[in-house]
């Protein structure tokens, strides 16, 4: 019970070991941690890269014993896209949020230089999203849905010869961003002997080109042996199948050929079981940790340096947080002012231009207006003239009428009253008629009327 150390103990991190005299309960700590994690649930994100038709979806279906319903894609995609889908799986009390990201159209184009870029962009985008969340002032990291890719399954075509140049190029650009596990798809088309040679060739090519693939960790004694053996089996030659075939009274996942049945879970037939072991049962946590501690940190470092942050100032002195932020903020502020100024200039310029255009339009319209006014004026004068002419004619006619009436009354003295009345009526009617028809129109029509009335006059006078 007594402390097994004498005096002169440092009072800081030169910690001394305590010897316990009874059960404290510290050994329940891993359990507490695990319980908390179970409550929160786990996240795992797999990226599958491979040519169309190499068996990505089938393999994933076989790995997780479910059919994820991925639509089959054609070979005629114009460029490479990525399709991500998230599923919630539960086994005993463990909830797993599994995200499967697959390439669509990889290797189908005629020009393949840009094939790997969308993939790199996607991986970077997930890192970026996490970084943004981490840099927020009010953040909630513990409830953040982690979408960073934890493992990349790279499907190699079972040609039996060597890696394609597209494969090399893609893997080289991804190896510092994600854990790559290369696998040989549709491995039932390669014979056993060819397979061995193929694997050796692939690994040597990867090594000679400096591609860093994921090595299963060998530092923990319980799994180091297994992991070391598995490391020697890379790349895994896999066969996937979701169909079940009856073999010896058992339904197994297999592919049926006329010459035999390839069983997915038979270790002699393919490395599917090894892949599942390594990927899920042994190293899932390690994959997640590597992604966070290594790949993400690298990304973060590069990104922050890009943004101009430094841990040390220009004379290599450590810069405090405050100074760095102040400097950055000041810089940003100046930049913003400059941009504002620029925008203002552009705005002023545009305004000037618009004003000029509008002025021109104004002048045009003004000219038109003048023109129209003039026309209008001319019309009015014309019409005035017509009116005067008509008025003159009216006056003349009234005089004539008066004269005619005078003659009528003189003639009527010796005629019967009815007749006079008739004549008057007639005359009146005629007069009235004329009045009704009298309007300010063309001279022609007026003349016509004038003509008819002179005619009736003449007729009457003739009578």
């Amino acid at each position, binding site marked *: 019970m007594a402390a097994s150390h004498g005096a002169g103990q440092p009072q800081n991190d030169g910690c001394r070991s305590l010897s316990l005299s009874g059960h404290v309960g510290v050994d329940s700590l891993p359990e507490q941690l695990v319980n908390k994690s179970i409550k929160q649930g786990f996240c795992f994100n797999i990226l599958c890269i491979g040519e169309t038709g190499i068996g990505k979806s089938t393999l994933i279906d076989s790995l997780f014993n479910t059919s994820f319903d991925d639509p089959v894609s054609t070979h005629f995609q114009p460029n490479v896209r990525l399709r991500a889908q998230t599923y919630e799986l539960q086994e005993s009390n463990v909830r797993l949020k599994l995200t499967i990201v697959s390439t669509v159209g990889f290797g189908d184009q005629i020009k393949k230089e840009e094939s790997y870029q969308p993939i790199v962009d996607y991986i970077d985008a997930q890192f970026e999203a996490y970084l943004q969340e981490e840099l927020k002032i009010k953040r909630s990291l513990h409830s953040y849905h982690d979408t960073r890719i934890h493992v990349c399954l790279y499907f190699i075509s079972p040609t039996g010869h060597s890696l394609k140049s597209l494969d090399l190029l893609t893997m080289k650009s991804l190896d510092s961003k994600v854990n790559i596990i290369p696998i040989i798809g549709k491995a039932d088309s390669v014979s056993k002997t060819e397979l061995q040679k193929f694997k050796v060739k692939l690994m040597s090519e990867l090594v000679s080109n400096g591609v860093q693939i994921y090595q299963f960790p060998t530092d923990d004694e*319980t799994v180091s042996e297994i992991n070391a053996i598995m490391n020697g089996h890379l790349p895994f030659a896999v066969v996937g199948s979701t169909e079940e075939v009856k073999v010896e009274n058992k339904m197994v996942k297999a592919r049926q050929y006329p010459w035999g049945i390839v069983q997915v879970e038979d270790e002699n037939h393919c490395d599917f079981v090894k892949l599942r072991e390594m990927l899920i049962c042994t190293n899932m946590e390690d994959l997640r940790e590597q992604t966070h501690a290594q790949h993400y940190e690298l990304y973060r470092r590069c990104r922050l340096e890009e943004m101009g942050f430094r841990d040390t100032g220009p004379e290599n002195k450590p810069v405090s947080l405050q100074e760095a932020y102040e400097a950055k903020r000041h810089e940003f502020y100046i930049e913003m002012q400059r941009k504002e100024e620029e925008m203002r200039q552009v705005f002023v310029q545009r305004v000037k231009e618009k004003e000029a255009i509008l002025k021109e339009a104004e002048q045009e319209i003004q000219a038109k207006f003048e023109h129209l006014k003039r026309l209008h004026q001319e019309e009015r004068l014309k019409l005035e003239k017509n009116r005067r002419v008509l008025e003159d004619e009216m006056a003349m006619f009234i005089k004539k009428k008066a004269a005619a009436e005078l003659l009528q009354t003189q003639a009527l003295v010796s005629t019967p009253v009815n007749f006079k009345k008739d004549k008057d009526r007639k005359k009146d009617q005629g007069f009235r008629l004329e009045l009704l028809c009298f309007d300010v129109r063309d001279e022609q029509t007026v003349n016509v009327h004038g003509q008819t009335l002179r005619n009736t006059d003449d007729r009457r006078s003739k009578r």
Partner: protein
Amino acid sequence: MFKGPVESKNEAAMSELVPEPRQKPAVPMKPMGINANLLGYIGIDTIIEQMRKKTMKTGFDFNIMVVGQSGLGKSTLVNTLFKSQVSRKSSGWNREEKIPKTVEIKAIGHVIEEGGVKMKLTVIDTPGFGDQINNENCWEPIEKYINEQYEKFLKEEVNIARKKRIPDTRVHCCLYFISPTGHSLRPLDLEFMKHLSKVVNIIPVIAKADTMTLEEKTEFKQRVRKELEVNGIEFYPQKEFDEDLEDKTENDKIRESMPFAVVGSDKEYQVNGKRVLGRKTPWGIIEVENLTHCEFALLRDFVIRTHLQDLKEVTHNIHYETYRAKRLNDNGGLPPMTVETEENHESNL
């Protein structure tokens, strides 16, 4: 012939039910039996084993602070909690040491290993608290210390090249010792807890509980709880951080029995043929770990065996985040990632 993941996996799955760390059995390469159920088994739950192994390798950190006036039995209690000579009194100091004139903060680190689990325990003592004639603002050095630890962590976190594991010196738990007057809380107690309950998890304990009878104990506890509630002081486990119904019911039970009335001792006596930790008095032996005598066992189970991880998480996810947000806001915030978008500018400044 069906070969697949086999029985040992089932064992691994069941080991979680037994609350003891177990080594994961080695993966067999040859089939050891055929189990048709396993057609549907994938192995996702093995992640628990993987996680457990990893944490056992990396070990845990825990920083506990004890605050209270001299002579309340702080050092003895800490020694009893961790069943060893932890406190500064046993590492080279003696009881005749003068009481300091101001509050000092002394942190001592220890390593505890039990059942394969390594824990780095730091006990932070605050001699001089509440011992002066004028105790105004004696919580300030303590608050300053706690904030300094947050600051240290923040500085490490925003570095460009970060360490793999940032050393955690933040105070996870603060045990506040209440004097067993039997009446009510002192103004100093209230002031301290009011100031500090927002920055750290406070667990109030009633010290030297063997001076109170059972009825006095229950009454005192009720009064203390009432006073804390009236003053708006939330001690750990805080009501607002209960995550779900299960948590709430469990924590409600604990809250009802807090503050724990404890007795500490590092001496062993023979009682009923067993050796137990206790205090010998003329009228009997007070057994520290006997629930009918005092609530030490409850406190120990609560702090170490069930809620240690939660204490750390509340400190990290809530207290630390609050400090960080305040700090970044005061400082003008981090410049936004993309220079073009105005909205980022708004939200971060």
